[in-house]
């Protein structure tokens, strides 16, 4: 490759991902979700980040290959363990891809129940994220409050599906069980509670200086960069592009329970906070609407062991954005290929773009802001331009550094 081409690639953001020996860490920055562990090595000029390099793959397990050796139904339990936070999104994306291939239509009640659980999962994921932003900005009270509220959502999920995290609730042809008796009342109670808390948190993140100073104007992503780098989910919507799989390509019962797509033109972390809180409020509304409209009838159909030959492409809106499944069947009891593209994979390039030009103190907030889960921030290797000096900072030191840096600035 010529130098000119190389420069061109760097300009488009394609050169960001290379890593050099001085950036290798003794212990990888483990990202908790499956394929998206990230290791960022930052090139600094004083305080300012001039370049970011990332190395992913620390949590690579080889699930796509394993998916070829399992039967269709067994794969549900495998693929929902791709990610512990959006596990239901994975299982419905896979189930619906296979259902589309077979031409079976899930009963309406089953689709409604899927929508309800998917939205509950969105609430729990967004609240989890918001708590972590609170933690990384040094506002631990917010972290504890939100995680306490989140437990009530998990209680609901447990009451319906039987588990808190890996629900194993969706199956080929519907959902495994009907909703339990009396869930409507507790759902109503909890959703009203969450809505009240969300109003409070919205006011809080708008006015509380601890949050405002650390998030406004931080991690800015321009609309042009977003079009170029194709991020997904709230990250894309925060740049003003209105794109939501639930609205544009409705699945489950989203054609009847229509979400309201929120966008913002700021593209910074503060707008992401507002956007995700608005989405939580909208999810509460959608759950109540779905409970009110919940049709009678079956929630599941019998599904054959063999899936006809063909290709199927399916995507759903996971809490972090578009989750993509490609399934190919050779007409046997096993898939011949399953390809998964998780949302964070699409967002990494945008994250490296967001970090550039900011100070070291902003790194934890920006990296949390794109919602990659939290583990990736536990270790960062910092390379100082000029001296070539390298030192390690773990997440806690970096957090303290950030808090001290901003406490001097009021």
């Amino acid at each position, binding site marked *: 490759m010529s130098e000119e081409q190389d420069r061109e690639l760097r300009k488009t953001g394609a050169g960001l991902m290379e890593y050099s020996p001085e950036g290798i860490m*003794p*212990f*990888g920055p*483990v*990202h*908790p*979700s*499956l394929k998206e562990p990230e290791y960022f090595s930052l090139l600094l000029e004083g305080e300012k980040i001039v370049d970011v390099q990332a190395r992913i*793959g*620390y*949590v*690579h*397990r*080889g*699930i796509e*290959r*394993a998916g070829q*050796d399992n039967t269709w139904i067994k794969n549900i*339990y*495998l693929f929902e*363990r*791709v*990610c*512990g*936070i959006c*596990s239901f999104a994975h299982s419905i994306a896979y189930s619906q891809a296979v259902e589309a291939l077979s031409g079976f239509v899930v009963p309406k009640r089953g689709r409604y129940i899927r929508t309800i659980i998917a939205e509950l999962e969105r609430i729990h994921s967004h609240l*989890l994220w918001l708590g972590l932003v609170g933690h990384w900005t040094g506002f631990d009270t917010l*972290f*504890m409050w939100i*995680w*306490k509220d989140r*437990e009530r959502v*998990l209680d609901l999920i447990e009451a319906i599906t039987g588990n*808190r*995290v*890996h629900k194993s609730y969706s199956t080929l042809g519907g959902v495994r069980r009907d909703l339990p008796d009396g869930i409507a009342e507790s759902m109503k109670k909890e959703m009203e509670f969450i809505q009240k808390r969300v109003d409070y948190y919205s006011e809080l993140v708008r006015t509380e200086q601890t949050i405002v100073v650390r998030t406004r104007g931080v991690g800015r992503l321009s609309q042009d960069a977003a079009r170029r780098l194709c991020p997904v989910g709230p990250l894309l919507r925060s740049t003003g592009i209105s794109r939501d799989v639930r609205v544009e390509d409705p699945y489950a019962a989203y054609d009847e329970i229509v979400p309201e797509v929120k966008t913002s033109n700021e593209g910074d972390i503060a707008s992401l906070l507002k956007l995700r809180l608005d989405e939580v409020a909208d999810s509460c509304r959608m759950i109540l609407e779905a409970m009110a409209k919940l049709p009678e009838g079956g929630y599941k159909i019998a599904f054959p062991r063999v899936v006809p030959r063909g290709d199927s492409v399916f995507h759903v809106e996971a809490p972090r954005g578009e989750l993509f499944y490609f399934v190919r069947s050779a007409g046997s009891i096993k898939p011949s290929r399953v390809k998964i593209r998780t949302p964070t994979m699409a967002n990494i390039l945008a994250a490296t773009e967001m970090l550039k030009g900011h100070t070291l103190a902003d790194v934890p907030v920006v990296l949390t802001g794109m919602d990659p*889960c939290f*583990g990736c921030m*536990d270790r960062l290797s910092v390379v100082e331009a000029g001296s070539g000096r390298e030192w390690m900072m*773990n*997440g*806690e*030191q970096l957090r303290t550094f950030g808090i001290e840096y901003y406490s001097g600035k009021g």
Partner: protein
Amino acid sequence: MSQAADSFSGRFRRWARKRSIWVFHVNAASCNGCDIEILAALTPRYDAERFGVELVPSPRHADVLLVTGTVNAQMKDRLRDVYEQIPEPKHVVAIGACALGGGVMKGCYNVGHGIDKVIPVDLYIPGCPPRPEALLFGIIKLVTGEPPDRREE
């Protein structure tokens, strides 16, 4: 038991350790499910801090190492490094089906079958993922040698 361990300072140290269990958490190729349950165990509903359990950011400060996930090829050596950095006395807790023996990932080309093939393990907490109550139960049992409800207080 050596004489030093039976001295007053030895007994004091043992008493103090049981009441301030500092844990360090390593995600060795986990799906994140166990990790969020560890965090949930530290937040107000379950409140592990009432037993003196605290999550610390460096292995050098830790008494107990919590490991989640099937150990993959990238994480194998790194996990061993972390283990060696923890000062004695140290304990290792394997959390979740993957850490115990591979779980659903068993047979994948990039995963090891259980962390006890890499580092010695003191306690296994099964579940996919284990509930926060199970985590608390396990850790208290690890340091006291007894289930929490039978502990003499």
